[in-house]
């Protein structure tokens, strides 16, 4: 049988694994109900969902359109199953593509990005599993107040280092979205809970600026 090219095969694999993962993840509440003979209170479920679904379904939709072009197919199929996209998988993939010096959006970038997300997913699952096994001795260490500021500042530490690389290489693209985002977040601190929705806003600004500069031959 003729072997399908990677670009085609990855969509078949991604759909099959995605469906299996979705069923498995949804099976958890179902199994809890069956094994413990429990019945859900749909009124309570609906009330809880009304509180989260409008925001998180919107963010989910936006993330699909933002991260697939950014990360490529293979890593997107995996990242949307393994989660922690904005705070871990996307920066990890961007860092790996940068280190490998592959052109953004190329086939090489797609492959390196998939390797990065897969590795990151494996390491995350293993570290958390190890942590769960050692939860008793680890809890007092991780909850030590001395360490709290370090873990509270993981995002500034990550985006400071990642930002300096990307902004220095793409400063013409960076100025406008960074300026708009600074003004937005400083003026409306409440937006911090909606950062997922602001990623595509930043991207649209960067794309608009890029298009103008590209048309003028300045990129």
């Amino acid at each position, binding site marked *: 049988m003729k072997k399908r090219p990677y670009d085609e095969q990855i969509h078949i694999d991604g759909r099959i694994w995605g469906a299996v993962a979705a069923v498995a993840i949804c099976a958890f509440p179902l199994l809890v109900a069956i094994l413990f003979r429990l019945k859900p209170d749909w009124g309570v479920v609906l009330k809880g969902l009304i509180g989260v679904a409008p925001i998180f379904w919107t963010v989910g939709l936006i993330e699909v359109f*933002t991260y697939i072009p950014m990360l490529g197919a293979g890593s997107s199929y995996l990242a949307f199953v393994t989660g922690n996209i904005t705070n871990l998988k996307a920066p990890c993939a961007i860092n790996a593509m940068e280190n490998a010096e592959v052109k953004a959006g190329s086939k090489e970038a797609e492959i390196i990005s998939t390797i990065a997300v897969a590795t990151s997913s494996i390491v995350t699952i293993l570290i958390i599993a190890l942590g769960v096994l050692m939860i008793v001795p680890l809890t007092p260490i991780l909850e030590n107040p001395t360490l709290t500021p370090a873990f509270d500042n993981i995002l500034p530490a990550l985006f400071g280092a990642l930002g300096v690389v990307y902004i220095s290489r793409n400063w013409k693209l960076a100025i406008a979205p960074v300026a708009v985002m600074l003004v937005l977040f400083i003026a409306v601190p409440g937006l911090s809970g909606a950062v997922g929705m602001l990623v595509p806003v930043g991207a649209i600004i960067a794309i608009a600026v890029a298009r103008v500069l590209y048309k003028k031959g300045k990129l």
Partner: protein
Amino acid sequence: MEFSLNSPILFVIVGGILLLVLAQSVFFLIRAWQAGKEIGIAKSKLRKAVISSAVFTIAPAVSILMGVIVLSKKLGLALPWLRLSVIGALTYELTAAENAANAAGTSLSDSAAQVSGSQFLNITIVMTLGIIVGLILVPILCKKIQGGMDKMKKKDTKWGEILTNALFMGMISAFMGLIFTDIRSGLSGWIPVFIMLISAVCMALMGLLMKITKWQWLNDYALPICMLVGMASAIPVTNWIGG
């Protein structure tokens, strides 16, 4: 069977689901590795991508583990272990769990009150359905979106590359803005900004060091090293400023 938040059967179910997702990750890793070899990417480059991604992941994964501990006080260990190992992120899971807990007549902060079986089931359903969108939409839309991107790249390769860089910039700019959120609340609100600057300076120094010493291997570890430097510096900076 009598319900318990830490019933062994819950751990067996979670372990099974996680093994499945682990298998998926290994499958994609092998597929991408083979495809990389087929198109002529050097084995050393592929290996470097694996090692640097693994090293990069350690600190964020430990921070996710802290989220598991936080949620476990109310929800037991099995559910947070599942939700934070796959699909979710702490910001989402905390909000979803709190909303569901409130709807079920309890609160995450009230760790003294035991969650009943039916409350647990309701919370689990809300957390599952609340984040299902990405999981459903990616298999439906990925090929179409990727196809559109490929078409654009075929038409104009350079613009395709710029477009992807602009998307990266969108994400980085949003998170940089987020870091400045609290600066109007006083000096303690500047702590994340100082940490970001320390981490950025560290990265610039790494670049300089690589240029001077020609230590190319440092390239793979620069980001995790600077992240750890930034995180470690948060401890004295917070103590000095008094966050």
